[in-house]
Protein backbone atom coordinates (compact mmCIF):
# COMPACT_ATOMS: atom_id res chain seq x y z
CA UNK A 1 0.00 0.00 0.00
CA UNK A 2 1.29 3.45 -0.87
CA UNK A 3 2.18 5.49 2.19
CA UNK A 4 1.72 9.25 2.24
CA UNK A 5 4.74 11.43 3.01
CA UNK A 6 5.04 15.04 4.04
CA UNK A 7 6.61 17.36 1.51
CA UNK A 8 6.38 18.86 -1.96
CA UNK A 9 5.34 17.24 -5.22
CA UNK A 10 7.33 14.11 -6.17
CA UNK A 11 8.50 13.01 -9.64
CA UNK A 12 5.70 10.42 -9.71
CA UNK A 13 3.14 13.05 -8.77
CA UNK A 14 4.54 15.46 -11.36
CA UNK A 15 4.48 12.79 -14.06
CA UNK A 16 0.83 12.00 -13.28
CA UNK A 17 -0.01 15.70 -13.11
CA UNK A 18 1.62 16.27 -16.48
CA UNK A 19 -0.03 13.31 -18.19
CA UNK A 20 -3.51 14.27 -16.95
CA UNK A 21 -3.10 17.88 -18.07
CA UNK A 22 -1.67 16.98 -21.46
CA UNK A 23 -4.52 14.54 -22.08
CA UNK A 24 -7.03 17.18 -21.01
CA UNK A 25 -5.40 19.80 -23.23
CA UNK A 26 -5.64 17.59 -26.29
CA UNK A 27 -9.33 16.91 -25.60
CA UNK A 28 -10.29 20.47 -24.57
CA UNK A 29 -12.21 23.11 -26.46
CA UNK A 30 -11.50 26.80 -25.74
CA UNK A 31 -13.38 27.10 -22.38
CA UNK A 32 -11.93 23.84 -21.05
CA UNK A 33 -8.49 24.89 -22.16
CA UNK A 34 -8.82 27.97 -19.97
CA UNK A 35 -9.43 25.74 -16.93
CA UNK A 36 -6.29 23.72 -17.74
CA UNK A 37 -4.28 26.93 -18.24
CA UNK A 38 -5.37 28.17 -14.79
CA UNK A 39 -4.02 25.02 -13.14
CA UNK A 40 -0.76 25.26 -15.12
CA UNK A 41 -0.41 28.90 -14.06
CA UNK A 42 -1.01 27.96 -10.43
CA UNK A 43 1.62 25.22 -10.70
CA UNK A 44 4.07 27.78 -12.13
CA UNK A 45 3.32 30.27 -9.35
CA UNK A 46 3.37 27.95 -6.34
CA UNK A 47 5.67 25.08 -7.30
CA UNK A 48 8.15 26.42 -9.84
CA UNK A 49 8.20 30.09 -8.82
CA UNK A 50 11.33 31.95 -10.01
CA UNK A 51 12.25 29.44 -12.71
CA UNK A 52 8.81 29.80 -14.35
CA UNK A 53 9.90 32.75 -16.49
CA UNK A 54 12.59 30.74 -18.21
CA UNK A 55 10.24 27.79 -18.77
CA UNK A 56 7.61 30.05 -20.31
CA UNK A 57 10.19 31.79 -22.51
CA UNK A 58 11.43 28.43 -23.77
CA UNK A 59 7.88 27.35 -24.53
CA UNK A 60 7.27 30.54 -26.49
CA UNK A 61 10.49 30.03 -28.46
CA UNK A 62 9.27 26.58 -29.46
CA UNK A 63 5.64 27.40 -30.18
CA UNK A 64 5.67 30.90 -31.72
CA UNK A 65 7.50 29.91 -34.97
CA UNK A 66 5.06 27.02 -35.44
CA UNK A 67 2.13 29.35 -34.78
CA UNK A 68 3.43 31.83 -37.37
CA UNK A 69 3.83 29.02 -39.89
CA UNK A 70 0.27 27.82 -39.24
CA UNK A 71 -1.02 31.39 -39.57
CA UNK A 72 0.65 31.76 -42.94
CA UNK A 73 -0.79 28.46 -44.17
CA UNK A 74 -4.32 28.57 -42.72
CA UNK A 75 -5.11 32.29 -42.63
CA UNK A 76 -2.88 33.50 -45.44
CA UNK A 77 -3.10 30.69 -48.00
CA UNK A 78 -6.13 28.48 -47.23
CA UNK A 79 -8.33 31.23 -45.77
CA UNK A 80 -10.84 28.79 -44.17
CA UNK A 81 -10.95 26.62 -41.07
CA UNK A 82 -10.89 22.80 -41.43
CA UNK A 83 -14.47 22.61 -40.12
CA UNK A 84 -15.64 24.98 -42.86
CA UNK A 85 -13.78 22.97 -45.47
CA UNK A 86 -15.42 19.76 -44.22
CA UNK A 87 -18.86 21.42 -44.32
CA UNK A 88 -18.22 22.70 -47.82
CA UNK A 89 -19.02 26.27 -46.75
CA UNK A 90 -17.45 29.50 -48.00
CA UNK A 91 -15.51 30.07 -44.77
CA UNK A 92 -13.59 33.03 -43.46
CA UNK A 93 -10.10 34.02 -42.44
CA UNK A 94 -11.47 34.86 -38.98
CA UNK A 95 -12.54 31.24 -38.45
CA UNK A 96 -9.16 30.07 -39.75
CA UNK A 97 -7.49 32.41 -37.27
CA UNK A 98 -9.54 31.01 -34.37
CA UNK A 99 -8.61 27.48 -35.44
CA UNK A 100 -4.89 28.34 -35.45
CA UNK A 101 -5.21 30.16 -32.12
CA UNK A 102 -6.77 27.09 -30.48
CA UNK A 103 -4.16 24.69 -31.88
CA UNK A 104 -1.29 27.02 -30.91
CA UNK A 105 -2.75 27.51 -27.41
CA UNK A 106 -3.05 23.75 -26.89
CA UNK A 107 0.51 23.31 -28.09
CA UNK A 108 1.72 26.06 -25.78
CA UNK A 109 -0.02 24.55 -22.74
CA UNK A 110 1.46 21.11 -23.48
CA UNK A 111 4.99 22.42 -23.98
CA UNK A 112 4.74 24.77 -21.03
CA UNK A 113 3.55 21.97 -18.72
CA UNK A 114 6.54 19.84 -19.69
CA UNK A 115 8.96 22.77 -19.33
CA UNK A 116 7.55 23.70 -15.91
CA UNK A 117 7.87 20.14 -14.62
CA UNK A 118 11.44 20.02 -15.97
CA UNK A 119 12.18 23.34 -14.22
CA UNK A 120 10.61 22.10 -10.98
CA UNK A 121 12.95 19.10 -10.96
CA UNK A 122 15.99 20.82 -12.42
CA UNK A 123 18.00 19.70 -9.40
CA UNK A 124 17.59 16.09 -10.53
CA UNK A 125 19.34 14.61 -13.55
CA UNK A 126 17.09 13.01 -16.21
CA UNK A 127 18.29 9.53 -15.21
CA UNK A 128 17.58 10.26 -11.57
CA UNK A 129 14.09 11.57 -12.37
CA UNK A 130 13.18 8.62 -14.58
CA UNK A 131 14.75 6.17 -12.13
CA UNK A 132 12.31 7.00 -9.32
CA UNK A 133 9.18 6.76 -11.45
CA UNK A 134 6.82 3.92 -10.53
CA UNK A 135 6.74 2.34 -13.96
CA UNK A 136 8.27 -0.90 -15.31
CA UNK A 137 12.00 -0.80 -16.08
CA UNK A 138 11.20 -1.37 -19.77
CA UNK A 139 9.20 1.89 -19.81
CA UNK A 140 12.00 3.74 -18.00
CA UNK A 141 14.47 2.42 -20.54
CA UNK A 142 12.21 3.66 -23.32
CA UNK A 143 12.15 7.16 -21.76
CA UNK A 144 15.94 7.24 -21.42
CA UNK A 145 16.51 6.03 -24.98
CA UNK A 146 14.03 8.58 -26.30
CA UNK A 147 15.89 11.33 -24.47
CA UNK A 148 19.20 10.01 -25.79
CA UNK A 149 17.82 10.10 -29.32
CA UNK A 150 16.89 13.75 -28.81
CA UNK A 151 20.41 14.45 -27.56
CA UNK A 152 21.87 12.56 -30.52
CA UNK A 153 19.85 14.69 -32.93
CA UNK A 154 21.01 17.87 -31.22
CA UNK A 155 24.60 16.64 -31.40
CA UNK A 156 24.12 15.77 -35.08
CA UNK A 157 22.79 19.27 -35.77
CA UNK A 158 25.84 20.76 -34.06
CA UNK A 159 28.22 18.54 -36.03
CA UNK A 160 26.50 19.21 -39.35
CA UNK A 161 26.61 22.95 -38.67
CA UNK A 162 30.34 22.71 -37.97
CA UNK A 163 30.97 20.82 -41.21
CA UNK A 164 28.89 23.06 -43.43
CA UNK A 165 29.99 26.37 -41.93
CA UNK A 166 33.65 25.34 -42.02
CA UNK A 167 33.43 24.57 -45.72
CA UNK A 168 31.53 27.79 -46.43
CA UNK A 169 28.16 26.30 -47.40
CA UNK A 170 26.45 27.95 -44.42
CA UNK A 171 27.14 31.00 -42.31
CA UNK A 172 26.87 31.34 -38.54
CA UNK A 173 24.27 34.10 -38.83
CA UNK A 174 21.14 34.31 -40.96
CA UNK A 175 21.86 34.52 -44.69
CA UNK A 176 20.50 33.72 -48.14
CA UNK A 177 23.23 31.09 -48.37
CA UNK A 178 21.71 29.27 -45.40
CA UNK A 179 18.34 29.25 -47.10
CA UNK A 180 19.80 27.95 -50.34
CA UNK A 181 21.68 25.14 -48.60
CA UNK A 182 19.07 24.21 -46.00
CA UNK A 183 18.37 20.92 -47.77
CA UNK A 184 22.07 20.02 -47.55
CA UNK A 185 21.89 20.72 -43.82
CA UNK A 186 18.90 18.40 -43.42
CA UNK A 187 20.69 15.63 -45.31
CA UNK A 188 23.89 16.11 -43.33
CA UNK A 189 22.07 16.07 -40.00
CA UNK A 190 20.35 12.78 -40.81
CA UNK A 191 23.51 11.19 -42.16
CA UNK A 192 25.38 12.30 -39.04
CA UNK A 193 22.69 11.06 -36.65
CA UNK A 194 22.55 7.67 -38.34
CA UNK A 195 26.33 7.24 -38.29
CA UNK A 196 26.53 8.28 -34.63
CA UNK A 197 23.89 5.70 -33.68
CA UNK A 198 25.35 2.92 -35.81
CA UNK A 199 28.85 3.64 -34.45
CA UNK A 200 27.52 3.30 -30.93
CA UNK A 201 25.56 0.12 -31.67
CA UNK A 202 28.50 -1.47 -33.47
CA UNK A 203 31.44 -0.51 -31.24
CA UNK A 204 30.42 0.41 -27.73
CA UNK A 205 27.19 -1.23 -26.66
CA UNK A 206 27.84 -4.88 -27.65
CA UNK A 207 31.20 -4.93 -25.87
CA UNK A 208 29.89 -3.37 -22.66
CA UNK A 209 26.28 -4.61 -22.67
CA UNK A 210 25.47 -0.97 -22.05
CA UNK A 211 21.68 -1.45 -21.97
CA UNK A 212 22.07 -3.99 -19.18
CA UNK A 213 24.03 -1.38 -17.22
CA UNK A 214 21.26 1.12 -17.86
CA UNK A 215 18.60 -1.27 -16.57
CA UNK A 216 20.69 -1.82 -13.45
CA UNK A 217 21.11 1.94 -12.91
CA UNK A 218 17.37 2.51 -13.39
CA UNK A 219 16.40 -0.31 -11.04
CA UNK A 220 18.45 1.31 -8.29
CA UNK A 221 16.23 4.39 -8.22
CA UNK A 222 14.49 4.86 -4.88
CA UNK A 223 10.80 3.99 -5.38
CA UNK A 224 9.33 6.97 -3.57
CA UNK A 225 5.72 7.06 -2.42
CA UNK A 226 3.35 9.96 -3.05
CA UNK A 227 3.51 13.08 -0.89
CA UNK A 228 0.95 15.57 0.36
CA UNK A 229 2.05 17.89 -2.43
CA UNK A 230 0.94 15.28 -4.95
CA UNK A 231 -2.46 15.12 -3.26
CA UNK A 232 -2.92 18.80 -3.98
CA UNK A 233 -1.85 18.81 -7.61
CA UNK A 234 -3.22 15.48 -8.83
CA UNK A 235 -6.85 16.22 -7.85
CA UNK A 236 -6.48 19.75 -9.22
CA UNK A 237 -5.30 18.35 -12.54
CA UNK A 238 -8.10 15.79 -12.51
CA UNK A 239 -10.70 18.49 -11.85
CA UNK A 240 -9.32 20.59 -14.70
CA UNK A 241 -9.45 17.54 -16.97
CA UNK A 242 -13.11 16.90 -16.11
CA UNK A 243 -13.92 20.54 -16.83
CA UNK A 244 -11.97 20.41 -20.07
CA UNK A 245 -13.96 17.42 -21.29
CA UNK A 246 -17.37 18.54 -20.01
CA UNK A 247 -17.33 22.27 -20.86
CA UNK A 248 -17.37 22.64 -24.64
Amino acid sequence: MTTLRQGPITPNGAAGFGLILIGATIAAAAPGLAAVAVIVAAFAAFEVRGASGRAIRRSLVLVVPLAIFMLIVWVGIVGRSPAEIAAGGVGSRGAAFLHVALIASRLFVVVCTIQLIAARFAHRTPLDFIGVLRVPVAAKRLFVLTLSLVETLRHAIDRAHTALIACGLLTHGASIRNLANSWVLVQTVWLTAITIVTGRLRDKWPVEHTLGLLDHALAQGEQRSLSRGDLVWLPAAFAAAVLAVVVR
Partner: protein
Amino acid sequence: MTRRRELIVGPNFSGRSRALRALLRETSFLPASFFVGPYAEAALSGISSTIADEVQIYRTTDAQSLRPTYAPIDFDALADRKPQTLSGGEQVLLALHCFSRSAFTAIAVDTALEQLDGANRTSALACLERGDDFQFSVALIDNRIEPPFANWACRERKPEHPTYICDFSAFADALVPHKARAITIRDLHFGYRPGRAIFAGTDLMLEPGTAHRLLGPNGAGKTTLLKILVGVLRPLAGRMLLDGETYEPWRTGNRAIALATQNPDHQWCGATLHSDIARRRSVLAARATAPSDERLSLLARCLGFPSLDLHLYELPLAARKRLSWLWPFSGALPWIMLDEPTIGQDSETRRQLAAIVGRLCTLGYGVIFVTHDDDFAARVPHRVLAIEEGKITSRQQIAAGLQ
Protein backbone atom coordinates in the same frame (compact mmCIF):
# COMPACT_ATOMS: atom_id res chain seq x y z
CA MET B 1 42.00 -15.11 -12.81
CA THR B 2 45.08 -13.91 -14.68
CA ARG B 3 44.97 -10.22 -15.51
CA ARG B 4 46.56 -9.20 -18.79
CA ARG B 5 47.99 -6.11 -20.39
CA GLU B 6 47.99 -6.42 -24.14
CA LEU B 7 49.34 -3.85 -26.58
CA ILE B 8 48.26 -4.38 -30.18
CA VAL B 9 50.75 -2.84 -32.58
CA GLY B 10 51.14 -2.61 -36.33
CA PRO B 11 50.76 -0.27 -39.26
CA ASN B 12 47.45 1.18 -40.38
CA PHE B 13 45.01 -1.24 -42.02
CA SER B 14 46.66 -4.29 -40.43
CA GLY B 15 43.47 -5.29 -38.63
CA ARG B 16 44.37 -3.99 -35.17
CA SER B 17 40.82 -3.01 -34.23
CA ARG B 18 39.59 -6.40 -35.40
CA ALA B 19 42.30 -8.07 -33.31
CA LEU B 20 41.20 -6.00 -30.32
CA ARG B 21 37.64 -7.25 -30.70
CA ALA B 22 38.85 -10.83 -30.99
CA LEU B 23 40.88 -10.34 -27.82
CA LEU B 24 37.78 -9.19 -25.99
CA ARG B 25 36.27 -12.64 -26.56
CA GLU B 26 39.08 -14.30 -24.59
CA THR B 27 38.65 -15.37 -20.97
CA SER B 28 40.40 -12.47 -19.24
CA PHE B 29 38.14 -9.99 -21.00
CA LEU B 30 34.82 -11.76 -20.40
CA PRO B 31 31.96 -11.40 -19.63
CA ALA B 32 32.18 -7.76 -20.72
CA SER B 33 34.81 -5.07 -21.19
CA PHE B 34 34.63 -1.33 -20.88
CA PHE B 35 35.33 0.13 -24.31
CA VAL B 36 36.92 3.48 -25.14
CA GLY B 37 36.86 4.07 -28.86
CA PRO B 38 38.68 6.76 -30.80
CA TYR B 39 35.90 9.36 -30.71
CA ALA B 40 32.91 10.28 -28.56
CA GLU B 41 30.50 7.93 -30.37
CA ALA B 42 32.50 4.97 -29.11
CA ALA B 43 33.98 6.46 -25.95
CA LEU B 44 30.81 7.52 -24.14
CA SER B 45 27.59 5.56 -23.69
CA GLY B 46 25.45 8.01 -25.66
CA ILE B 47 22.46 7.39 -23.40
CA SER B 48 23.09 10.06 -20.81
CA SER B 49 22.07 13.70 -20.98
CA THR B 50 24.50 14.88 -18.31
CA ILE B 51 27.95 13.97 -17.05
CA ALA B 52 26.42 12.95 -13.71
CA ASP B 53 24.18 10.45 -15.53
CA GLU B 54 27.11 9.07 -17.54
CA VAL B 55 28.94 8.32 -14.29
CA GLN B 56 25.76 6.96 -12.71
CA ILE B 57 25.22 4.39 -15.46
CA TYR B 58 28.63 2.83 -14.87
CA ARG B 59 29.00 3.35 -11.12
CA THR B 60 29.17 0.24 -8.99
CA THR B 61 28.03 0.00 -5.39
CA ASP B 62 29.74 -3.33 -4.89
CA ALA B 63 32.40 -2.67 -2.23
CA GLN B 64 34.60 -5.50 -3.56
CA SER B 65 34.80 -3.89 -6.99
CA LEU B 66 35.81 -0.45 -5.78
CA ARG B 67 39.15 0.90 -6.95
CA PRO B 68 40.79 4.33 -6.78
CA THR B 69 38.79 6.91 -8.72
CA TYR B 70 40.59 8.31 -11.74
CA ALA B 71 39.64 11.97 -11.89
CA PRO B 72 42.14 14.27 -13.60
CA ILE B 73 39.24 16.73 -13.97
CA ASP B 74 36.71 17.55 -11.26
CA PHE B 75 33.76 15.90 -12.98
CA ASP B 76 31.53 16.52 -9.96
CA ALA B 77 31.82 20.25 -10.68
CA LEU B 78 30.75 19.59 -14.28
CA ALA B 79 27.90 17.24 -13.31
CA ASP B 80 25.15 19.19 -15.11
CA ARG B 81 27.01 19.60 -18.39
CA LYS B 82 26.23 17.53 -21.46
CA PRO B 83 29.02 15.04 -22.20
CA GLN B 84 29.13 16.14 -25.85
CA THR B 85 30.12 19.66 -24.82
CA LEU B 86 33.44 18.40 -23.46
CA SER B 87 36.48 18.55 -25.71
CA GLY B 88 37.66 15.33 -27.37
CA GLY B 89 40.38 14.75 -24.78
CA GLU B 90 38.03 15.51 -21.89
CA GLN B 91 35.57 12.93 -23.21
CA VAL B 92 38.28 10.29 -23.10
CA LEU B 93 39.13 11.32 -19.53
CA LEU B 94 35.44 11.05 -18.61
CA ALA B 95 35.30 7.55 -20.09
CA LEU B 96 38.33 6.50 -18.01
CA HIS B 97 36.74 8.12 -14.95
CA CYS B 98 33.57 6.07 -15.53
CA PHE B 99 35.66 2.89 -15.87
CA SER B 100 37.47 3.59 -12.62
CA ARG B 101 34.12 3.75 -10.80
CA SER B 102 32.65 0.71 -12.52
CA ALA B 103 32.78 -3.00 -11.77
CA PHE B 104 34.30 -3.91 -15.14
CA THR B 105 37.30 -6.22 -14.87
CA ALA B 106 38.61 -5.37 -18.33
CA ILE B 107 39.05 -2.30 -20.50
CA ALA B 108 39.83 -1.88 -24.18
CA VAL B 109 41.18 1.41 -25.52
CA ASP B 110 41.34 1.95 -29.29
CA THR B 111 43.70 4.89 -30.04
CA ALA B 112 41.73 7.16 -27.69
CA LEU B 113 44.74 8.13 -25.56
CA GLU B 114 46.22 9.90 -28.59
CA GLN B 115 43.83 12.78 -27.92
CA LEU B 116 45.28 13.48 -24.49
CA ASP B 117 47.83 16.13 -23.60
CA GLY B 118 51.17 15.05 -22.12
CA ALA B 119 50.18 15.16 -18.45
CA ASN B 120 46.79 13.50 -18.95
CA ARG B 121 48.28 10.83 -21.20
CA THR B 122 50.90 9.97 -18.59
CA SER B 123 48.29 9.75 -15.85
CA ALA B 124 45.93 7.68 -18.05
CA LEU B 125 48.68 5.21 -18.90
CA ALA B 126 49.63 5.03 -15.21
CA CYS B 127 45.97 4.28 -14.42
CA LEU B 128 45.94 1.43 -16.94
CA GLU B 129 49.31 0.17 -15.66
CA ARG B 130 47.73 -0.46 -12.27
CA GLY B 131 45.56 -3.25 -13.62
CA ASP B 132 47.55 -5.82 -11.66
CA ASP B 133 46.92 -4.02 -8.38
CA PHE B 134 43.23 -3.57 -8.98
CA GLN B 135 42.46 -6.75 -10.87
CA PHE B 136 41.55 -5.65 -14.33
CA SER B 137 42.85 -6.52 -17.79
CA VAL B 138 43.76 -3.97 -20.45
CA ALA B 139 43.85 -4.14 -24.25
CA LEU B 140 45.37 -1.10 -25.91
CA ILE B 141 45.96 0.26 -29.40
CA ASP B 142 48.14 3.35 -29.45
CA ASN B 143 50.22 4.58 -32.36
CA ARG B 144 52.56 6.57 -30.17
CA ILE B 145 53.84 3.61 -28.17
CA GLU B 146 56.66 1.74 -29.82
CA PRO B 147 57.20 -1.84 -28.63
CA PRO B 148 58.68 -3.22 -26.49
CA PHE B 149 56.52 -1.62 -23.82
CA ALA B 150 57.63 -2.70 -20.36
CA ASN B 151 55.28 -5.15 -18.62
CA TRP B 152 52.92 -5.32 -21.59
CA ALA B 153 52.48 -8.23 -23.96
CA CYS B 154 52.72 -7.06 -27.57
CA ARG B 155 50.61 -8.51 -30.37
CA GLU B 156 52.16 -7.40 -33.61
CA ARG B 157 49.97 -7.20 -36.69
CA LYS B 158 51.38 -7.37 -40.21
CA PRO B 159 49.80 -5.63 -43.21
CA GLU B 160 47.17 -8.09 -44.43
CA HIS B 161 46.77 -7.02 -48.02
CA PRO B 162 47.82 -3.94 -49.95
CA THR B 163 45.10 -1.37 -49.29
CA TYR B 164 45.30 2.40 -49.20
CA ILE B 165 48.97 2.48 -50.16
CA CYS B 166 50.19 6.06 -50.15
CA ASP B 167 52.68 7.67 -52.48
CA PHE B 168 53.60 10.72 -50.44
CA SER B 169 56.42 11.83 -52.74
CA ALA B 170 54.00 12.01 -55.69
CA PHE B 171 51.53 13.75 -53.38
CA ALA B 172 54.14 16.37 -52.43
CA ASP B 173 54.99 16.90 -56.11
CA ALA B 174 51.31 17.46 -56.93
CA LEU B 175 50.88 20.28 -54.41
CA VAL B 176 50.41 23.72 -55.95
CA PRO B 177 51.68 27.06 -54.61
CA HIS B 178 49.33 29.55 -52.97
CA LYS B 179 49.63 33.04 -51.60
CA ALA B 180 48.09 33.22 -48.16
CA ARG B 181 47.38 36.54 -46.49
CA ALA B 182 48.31 37.30 -42.90
CA ILE B 183 45.56 36.77 -40.33
CA THR B 184 45.40 39.19 -37.43
CA ILE B 185 43.12 38.84 -34.43
CA ARG B 186 42.68 41.80 -32.10
CA ASP B 187 41.14 41.81 -28.64
CA LEU B 188 39.31 38.50 -29.04
CA HIS B 189 36.73 37.67 -26.38
CA PHE B 190 34.89 34.39 -26.31
CA GLY B 191 33.20 32.10 -23.82
CA TYR B 192 30.47 29.47 -24.02
CA ARG B 193 28.93 30.57 -20.70
CA PRO B 194 28.69 33.97 -19.07
CA GLY B 195 31.55 34.56 -16.66
CA ARG B 196 33.66 31.70 -18.02
CA ALA B 197 35.88 33.29 -20.64
CA ILE B 198 37.99 31.07 -22.88
CA PHE B 199 39.58 34.05 -24.59
CA ALA B 200 39.75 37.42 -22.85
CA GLY B 201 41.36 40.16 -24.90
CA THR B 202 43.51 37.83 -26.98
CA ASP B 203 45.71 39.21 -29.76
CA LEU B 204 47.16 36.94 -32.40
CA MET B 205 49.18 37.26 -35.60
CA LEU B 206 49.31 34.37 -38.05
CA GLU B 207 51.92 34.67 -40.78
CA PRO B 208 51.63 33.00 -44.18
CA GLY B 209 54.36 30.54 -45.10
CA THR B 210 54.56 29.47 -41.47
CA ALA B 211 53.23 26.52 -39.49
CA HIS B 212 51.70 27.44 -36.16
CA ARG B 213 51.18 24.87 -33.44
CA LEU B 214 48.33 25.58 -31.03
CA LEU B 215 49.33 24.20 -27.69
CA GLY B 216 47.41 23.86 -24.45
CA PRO B 217 45.98 21.26 -22.11
CA ASN B 218 42.77 19.35 -22.92
CA GLY B 219 39.86 21.77 -22.76
CA ALA B 220 42.00 24.92 -23.06
CA GLY B 221 40.15 26.14 -26.17
CA LYS B 222 42.31 25.02 -29.09
CA THR B 223 39.45 23.62 -31.17
CA THR B 224 37.34 26.61 -30.11
CA LEU B 225 39.88 28.98 -31.68
CA LEU B 226 39.83 26.96 -34.91
CA LYS B 227 36.04 27.16 -34.94
CA ILE B 228 36.18 30.93 -34.51
CA LEU B 229 38.67 31.24 -37.36
CA VAL B 230 36.41 29.38 -39.81
CA GLY B 231 33.25 31.14 -38.62
CA VAL B 232 31.54 28.26 -36.81
CA LEU B 233 31.60 30.34 -33.63
CA ARG B 234 31.13 34.08 -33.38
CA PRO B 235 33.38 35.95 -30.96
CA LEU B 236 31.73 38.03 -28.24
CA ALA B 237 34.06 40.89 -29.20
CA GLY B 238 37.17 41.51 -31.22
CA ARG B 239 38.28 41.91 -34.83
CA MET B 240 39.74 39.60 -37.40
CA LEU B 241 41.75 40.96 -40.33
CA LEU B 242 43.09 39.44 -43.56
CA ASP B 243 46.09 41.52 -44.61
CA GLY B 244 44.55 44.47 -42.80
CA GLU B 245 41.05 44.05 -44.26
CA THR B 246 38.19 43.19 -41.95
CA TYR B 247 37.25 39.50 -42.22
CA GLU B 248 34.16 38.13 -40.50
CA PRO B 249 33.68 34.50 -41.55
CA TRP B 250 30.81 34.06 -39.07
CA ARG B 251 28.87 36.66 -41.08
CA THR B 252 30.14 36.41 -44.65
CA GLY B 253 31.11 32.73 -44.73
CA ASN B 254 34.50 31.07 -44.64
CA ARG B 255 36.54 31.75 -47.78
CA ALA B 256 40.09 31.56 -46.48
CA ILE B 257 40.63 28.48 -44.35
CA ALA B 258 40.30 24.76 -45.04
CA LEU B 259 39.73 22.79 -41.86
CA ALA B 260 40.48 19.13 -41.20
CA THR B 261 38.62 18.35 -37.99
CA GLN B 262 39.83 16.16 -35.14
CA ASN B 263 37.10 13.62 -35.81
CA PRO B 264 37.05 13.35 -39.62
CA ASP B 265 33.33 12.62 -39.54
CA HIS B 266 32.75 16.18 -38.31
CA GLN B 267 33.74 17.62 -41.67
CA TRP B 268 31.92 15.62 -44.33
CA CYS B 269 29.29 17.43 -46.39
CA GLY B 270 28.12 14.32 -48.23
CA ALA B 271 27.93 10.55 -48.03
CA THR B 272 30.46 10.01 -50.81
CA LEU B 273 33.78 11.70 -51.40
CA HIS B 274 32.50 12.93 -54.74
CA SER B 275 29.42 14.65 -53.27
CA ASP B 276 31.50 16.10 -50.45
CA ILE B 277 33.93 17.64 -52.92
CA ALA B 278 31.20 18.87 -55.26
CA ARG B 279 29.54 20.77 -52.42
CA ARG B 280 32.79 22.31 -51.24
CA ARG B 281 33.65 23.34 -54.78
CA SER B 282 30.25 24.99 -55.25
CA VAL B 283 31.26 27.55 -52.62
CA LEU B 284 34.38 28.50 -54.57
CA ALA B 285 32.30 28.86 -57.77
CA ALA B 286 34.53 30.10 -60.57
CA ARG B 287 37.48 30.93 -58.37
CA ALA B 288 40.77 29.99 -60.03
CA THR B 289 41.90 27.98 -57.03
CA ALA B 290 38.91 25.61 -57.18
CA PRO B 291 40.57 22.22 -57.75
CA SER B 292 39.32 20.14 -60.66
CA ASP B 293 38.07 16.56 -60.41
CA GLU B 294 41.21 15.39 -62.23
CA ARG B 295 43.46 17.08 -59.73
CA LEU B 296 41.52 15.77 -56.73
CA SER B 297 41.48 12.27 -58.24
CA LEU B 298 45.25 12.44 -58.60
CA LEU B 299 45.70 13.54 -54.98
CA ALA B 300 43.26 10.87 -53.78
CA ARG B 301 45.20 8.21 -55.68
CA CYS B 302 48.42 9.44 -54.03
CA LEU B 303 46.72 9.00 -50.64
CA GLY B 304 45.77 5.43 -51.57
CA PHE B 305 42.19 5.89 -52.74
CA PRO B 306 41.49 4.75 -56.30
CA SER B 307 38.54 7.02 -57.05
CA LEU B 308 36.32 9.78 -55.73
CA ASP B 309 33.24 7.51 -55.74
CA LEU B 310 33.92 6.19 -52.26
CA HIS B 311 31.27 5.92 -49.59
CA LEU B 312 33.02 7.73 -46.77
CA TYR B 313 31.35 5.94 -43.88
CA GLU B 314 32.24 2.51 -45.27
CA LEU B 315 35.97 3.24 -44.94
CA PRO B 316 38.06 2.44 -41.85
CA LEU B 317 38.55 5.35 -39.48
CA ALA B 318 42.26 5.73 -40.29
CA ALA B 319 41.36 5.97 -43.98
CA ARG B 320 38.68 8.60 -43.29
CA LYS B 321 41.19 10.57 -41.24
CA ARG B 322 43.64 10.46 -44.14
CA LEU B 323 40.93 11.52 -46.59
CA SER B 324 40.15 14.48 -44.36
CA TRP B 325 43.44 16.01 -45.54
CA LEU B 326 42.47 15.85 -49.21
CA TRP B 327 40.51 19.10 -49.48
CA PRO B 328 42.82 21.20 -47.28
CA PHE B 329 45.86 20.03 -49.29
CA SER B 330 44.19 20.45 -52.67
CA GLY B 331 45.06 24.12 -52.95
CA ALA B 332 41.45 25.26 -52.70
CA LEU B 333 42.10 27.73 -49.88
CA PRO B 334 45.28 29.47 -48.72
CA TRP B 335 45.08 28.62 -45.03
CA ILE B 336 45.06 25.07 -43.69
CA MET B 337 43.98 24.08 -40.20
CA LEU B 338 44.63 20.57 -38.96
CA ASP B 339 43.06 19.49 -35.68
CA GLU B 340 44.96 16.50 -34.28
CA PRO B 341 45.92 15.30 -37.77
CA THR B 342 47.92 12.28 -36.60
CA ILE B 343 45.27 10.49 -34.53
CA GLY B 344 45.01 6.89 -35.66
CA GLN B 345 47.96 7.22 -38.05
CA ASP B 346 51.01 4.96 -37.86
CA SER B 347 54.54 6.32 -37.43
CA GLU B 348 55.42 6.24 -41.14
CA THR B 349 52.29 8.19 -42.12
CA ARG B 350 52.91 10.73 -39.36
CA ARG B 351 56.47 11.24 -40.57
CA GLN B 352 55.30 11.74 -44.16
CA LEU B 353 52.53 14.10 -43.06
CA ALA B 354 55.07 16.25 -41.24
CA ALA B 355 57.07 16.56 -44.46
CA ILE B 356 53.92 17.55 -46.38
CA VAL B 357 53.08 20.27 -43.85
CA GLY B 358 56.61 21.64 -44.12
CA ARG B 359 56.33 21.65 -47.91
CA LEU B 360 52.99 23.47 -47.81
CA CYS B 361 54.61 26.29 -45.86
CA THR B 362 57.36 26.65 -48.44
CA LEU B 363 54.64 26.85 -51.12
CA GLY B 364 53.11 29.90 -49.43
CA TYR B 365 50.25 28.41 -47.41
CA GLY B 366 49.63 29.29 -43.81
CA VAL B 367 49.19 26.28 -41.54
CA ILE B 368 47.75 26.00 -38.05
CA PHE B 369 47.83 22.62 -36.39
CA VAL B 370 46.71 21.30 -33.05
CA THR B 371 48.49 18.23 -31.81
CA HIS B 372 49.59 16.54 -28.63
CA ASP B 373 51.98 14.45 -30.73
CA ASP B 374 55.36 15.98 -29.88
CA ASP B 375 57.19 13.59 -32.19
CA PHE B 376 55.14 14.85 -35.16
CA ALA B 377 55.50 18.49 -34.13
CA ALA B 378 59.25 18.12 -33.81
CA ARG B 379 59.45 17.26 -37.49
CA VAL B 380 57.65 20.44 -38.62
CA PRO B 381 59.35 23.85 -38.36
CA HIS B 382 56.75 25.84 -36.50
CA ARG B 383 55.85 28.61 -34.14
CA VAL B 384 54.21 27.67 -30.87
CA LEU B 385 51.00 29.46 -29.89
CA ALA B 386 50.32 28.54 -26.28
CA ILE B 387 46.84 29.05 -24.87
CA GLU B 388 47.15 29.98 -21.23
CA GLU B 389 44.45 31.52 -19.06
CA GLY B 390 42.52 33.13 -21.87
CA LYS B 391 45.56 34.52 -23.66
CA ILE B 392 47.68 33.19 -26.49
CA THR B 393 51.40 33.63 -26.23
CA SER B 394 53.63 33.14 -29.23
CA ARG B 395 56.95 31.42 -28.67
CA GLN B 396 60.05 31.14 -30.78
CA GLN B 397 60.22 29.37 -34.07
CA ILE B 398 61.11 25.73 -33.45
CA ALA B 399 63.43 24.19 -35.99
CA ALA B 400 62.48 20.78 -37.30
CA GLY B 401 63.90 17.99 -35.19
CA LEU B 402 65.15 20.33 -32.47
CA GLN B 403 62.15 20.42 -30.16
